[in-house]
Every structure is written in structure tokens, then in C-alpha cells.
């Protein structure tokens, strides 16, 4: 069976301020449609791992496969393209472009990828917003909406290029329980109904307990 994401013996060191072995021999797989959460104490390297998996951090040893294709060692522009085509990203802080409208924020990655015409992009962006129940906000400035709404816009943005996997770095870390549940339900819906893989770093045990699989990390290693 195809794997969406696979790592083989990933090691990473922080060189400053002192040499520090952050990640030790990380190897695991994510299957299509699987909802995986990564848990662990602060400083155990889970976010570091996530940024390596997201292809934004290229300073590591080991091999990273996306869709069974080795992407370790590709150049930065190539990685940018892969990132926009296959990976959707949701951060703890909402990270929208405050000067653009909600709709434009959602559309930007698709415009960059340039796979569809502007009309198609707008249509599918509205579709995503509708799915997340925030189509009314489409024309508002991204800096003028509430935190829970921002996170939903960020999710819509991560979906715009129909990625194969969505990664989240504490996507509910900054939200109240109502909005947390909302975000979880959205994620679960994506996994169950659309067969998307999800990989979410979280501190929230309730959140993790409801996912398909929990990867627990400690001291740079996978515990189970």
C-alpha cells in the first residue's frame, strides 16, 4: 500500500549555543486517511520534527519520503513547489496575511501554484470556506476576525491546493474548548470523509485521545 509520508532514521542537531542532539533515529509512516497526533513534553523535539516533515527545515540527516518519493536533498525552489502542492499547514498562531481579505488569504497558495484558473480558484476557495462555515467572512480583512475564525480560515487555506496531508503545529493550542472541538471535528471530517492524512503536534490529551494513532515522543526519540 502507498504511504503518504515516511521517515527513515532522521537525526537532527542544534549547533547553537552548544551541540545538541534533538532528534534521534526517527522512523515512522503515515498511511492515507490516517489521523495521527504527536505528543510529548515541551522541548522533546516534536515541533522540530514537524518542520522537517513540512520540508521547511532542510538541515537534518536521514531520509524523508512524500508519496513514496524521496525529497531529501531537493533544492529550495523545488521544495517550495512540493510544499504548496502536497502539504497543507496549520499553525498555533493563525498566521494570516492581515492586509488581505479572508478570501485572498485562502486563494494565495493556489494562485502561486497556478494549476487552476483564477475563477476556479475563487470557486474552490468559497467552497472550502462554506465547508468550514465561514463563507460570510470571505470579504473581511483577515486582521478583523476572531481567533477561532482565523484558525478556520487557516485550515481553509491549507486545503486549497487539495493536499495529500495536513500538518498542524498545536492548531488548537491557542483556542478555547468550543473552538478546539470545532477544529477537531473539521479535521476528523477531512480524514474520514475525504481520506486526507493528518499529522498534528499537540499538548492536548483529549484531542490526541480521539485521533487514530498517537506517536509519543521523549528526548528526541519515539517512545511508542
Amino acid at each position, binding site marked *: 500500500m502507498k504511504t503518504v509520508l515516511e521517515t527513515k532514521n532522521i537525526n537532527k542537531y542544534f549547533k547553537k549555543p552548544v551541540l545538541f542532539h534533538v532528534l534521534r533515529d526517527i522512523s515512522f509512516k503515515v498511511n492515507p486517511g490516517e489521523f495521527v497526533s504527536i505528543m510529548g513534553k515541551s522541548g522533546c523535539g516534536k515541533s522540530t520534527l514537524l518542520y522537517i516533515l513540512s520540508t*521547511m527545515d532542510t538541515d537534518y540527516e536521514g531520509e524523508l519520503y512524500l508519496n513514496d518519493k524521496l525529497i531529501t536533498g531537493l533544492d529550495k525552489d523545488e521544495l*517550495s513547489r512540493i510544499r*504548496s502542492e502536497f502539504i497543507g*499547514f496549520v499553525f498555533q498562531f493563525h*498566521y494570516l496575511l492581515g492586509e488581505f481579505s479572508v478570501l485572498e488569504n485562502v486563494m494565495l*497558495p493556489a494562485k502561486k*501554484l497556478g494549476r487552476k484558473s483564477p475563477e476556479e480558484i475563487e470557486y474552490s476557495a468559497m467552497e472550502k470556506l462554506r465547508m468550514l462555515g465561514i463563507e460570510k467572512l470571505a470579504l473581511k480583512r483577515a486582521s478583523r476576525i476572531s481567533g477561532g475564525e482565523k484558525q478556520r480560515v487557516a485550515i481553509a487555506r491549507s486545503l486549497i*491546493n487539495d493536499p495529500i496531508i495536513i500538518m498542524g503545529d498545536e492548531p488548537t493550542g491557542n483556542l478555547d474548548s468550543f473552538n478546539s472541538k470545532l477544529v477537531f471535528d473539521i479535521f476528523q471530517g477531512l480524514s474520514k470523509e475525504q481520506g486526507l492524512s493528518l499529522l498534528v503536534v499537540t499538548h492536548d490529551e483529549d484531542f490526541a485521545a480521539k485521533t487514530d494513532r498517537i506517536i509519543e515522543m521523549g528526548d528526541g526519540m519515539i517512545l511508542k
Partner: protein
Amino acid sequence: MTNWKLILSIARTHLLTKFRQTAIAALGVTFGIGSYITLVGFMTGLNQMLDSLILNQTPHVHIFNEIEPSEEQPADLYTEFENSLIMIHSVKPKQSQKKIHNALALIDHLEKDRNVLAAIPQVKTQIFYISGSIELGGNLTGINAMQEVSYFNFGDYLIESEPESLENIDNAIFLGAGVAKKLSLSPGDRVQISTVKGNSFPLKVAGIFQSGIADLDNIQSFASIKTVQRILGEPENYITDINIKLKDIEQAPALANKIKKQFDLQAIDINTANAQFETGSTIRNLITYAVSITLLIVAGFGIYNILNMLIYEKMNDIAILKATGFSGTDVQFIFMSQAMIIGFVGGVLGLVIGYLLSVVIDRVPFETEALPTVSTYPINYDPWFYVIGIGFALISTFLAGYLPSRKAKNIDPVDIIRGQ
């Protein structure tokens, strides 16, 4: 592959939402370029005016017969004294004619030279202006008025008269302003002059000549060549001076030398005649360039500063763009295009403002005795200044945008996202 439409639309949104900042950055360019255009136009305008004050009325090469002693005295030719020291006292100038020998043929010959724009004959003589029993010494120069107008801007120095009247009115004279004042004469009056030999002639004042140099205006007058020849009782080939205007002023010394050797005449080139003037011009130009370059560099630093701040403020946006699939080069282009838009808009506005200020200065009254034709401050509207101005605006914003945007290109999004 770069999607310019997208990059420009992001740049535009950045610029428009931070409109005040954009406007300040653009105004920095505008003031730099605007003051450059105004200053350089004004300064070179003044320089040109001063240059033309001297250069326009000065022939590039002036040919005449000099009264001087012979270089070879008879004793030098005598072979008996070959090895002796010869001392001759009381050497007198050689008796020679004032007129240039075969002048008309010489003018024809000179005009065939492809460096020569025009060779214009003059007849110079000393006269006395007579008013009752008073005799006032002066110079009368016979000129071809229309040629003098086209090549030596003679018309600029005439007041209350047209240069044509010298040819059209019989026995017409343009009196020097000083002479006219002393003799209380105005155009339309008659003036009696007498030659050195004592013949007197009545002439009609057709106009007043004012060069702005008082010593000249107190003695100098002009009449047509024919009138002067008639006064002197000389034939039509009596020409005392030839003024040459060249296509390229740099050729003047070479041509003067050639004429001296070939025709045994005195020929003085403009560089020799006005050496100290040349130095003044060079220094004024140097000051103009120094001031303009300073202005442009100051404007450039202003742009650099503002773009740098803009990029620091946009660190988060840069990280998001990179996390969602934009490459470093895309981000660099976004900021470069912002810089270039600021440079272009600011630069064009600067040209407009510079032009408007120039027009205003051009209208400010500037009356001076020295320049009868100048009534407002001179401005040089050379299109090259505008080309240089917009060119510099674009180049300096490019450089000022390049360094900060390269930093944006190399920002690691992970650092920013984790840093929060």
C-alpha cells in the same frame, strides 16, 4: 517559473494598505529627484547664460593684420655679420596695410573647410563722434548685420531696434549705449562722425547697442561694411578682420596655427583669448555635479531605510508566504517590485515637481544691465537631466531594495514561526 501577476498584486496590496509609509518613501524619492532637476536646470541655465555672455559674441578664431616690427631686420640678412652680435636700436614697426590681403578669396577658402561654420568679414576703424565742437574718440566696425545675428547673437545686444535696419537704411549706425547717452542721441537722430584723416560724415542712428561691458559701450558703434568702406574711401575688398565660427570649438587652436603659417596673418583662437574664463566654467560645472550627486545619494539612503523597515515589519508575512509555497525568489521579487514601484512613482512625480519648479523660476524677473535680452532667471530644460533623474531614481531604488529583499529571500520561516 514566476507568476508576476500574483507577485505584483501582493506588492500592490502591501503598498496600498501601508499607504502613508509608501507615500513617505515615494516622497523621499520625489524630493531628491525634484530638487535635482530644479537645481541642475537652474545652475546649468546660469552657466550657459554666463558662457554665452562671452562665447556667443566671441569668434572662435579672429584673423587680422598686426602692426609689428619685422622679425628679420636687414642686418640679419647680410652675410658679412653672420657670426657677429647685431644690436639694432629704435626698431620701428613695419609699414604694412591694415587690410587683409585678398580677403574675399580667403573667406571663400575658409568657408570650404568642413570644420568652419562661417567666416565673416569686418572692417574696423577709429573715428570721432562729433557734437558741436566736442570730438569723442571711438571705434566703428563695419559688419554684415544678418550674419552677425545668426552666428554671434548680435541681435541680443540691440535695444529699441532691428538688426535689418543696418542694411535697409542708408548710412545707418548702431551707437554704443554709452556714446548715445553722452551725446543725448536716440534712434532716428543724426550723428556726425569724422575719420582719422579728417573727413566727416553724417550718419543716421538706427539703434542702440549694449553689450553690458561699459568700456566697450562707451566707444563702440556699428555700421554696415559698405558704409564704413565708403567713409574710409576704400574699395569693396577692403576687409580688416575675419571672424570664424567653428562647428567644434576644440579645433580653434589648430586652425589658428594653420592660418598663421599659411597666410602670414595674426590669428587668435578663443581658448587663448579667454583662458581664465574657461577655468571659471569648469569649476562651476564641477560644483553643479557635486551638488546633484549629493542630492541623489541622500535620496537613495532614504529609500534604503524605509524599505529596510518595511521588511522588518513584514517578517511574519514573509514566513507565511514561504510556508504556503512561495519560494525565496518570489518573496524577493515581491519586495523588489515594491521598491521599484516606489522608485518609479516617486521618480516621475519628482520630474513633474522639478519641471514645475523650473517653470516657476523661469518666470521670476531677473533684470540686469549686462544682459538686455534676459528678463527672467535662465533655466536649462535639457531632456537628458530628466532621463538621468528617472534613471537614477530607478537604479537607486533597485539597489536600496535589493539588499533588504535579499535578506527577505534568505529568511528561514521556521525561525520566525517558532520564535513566536
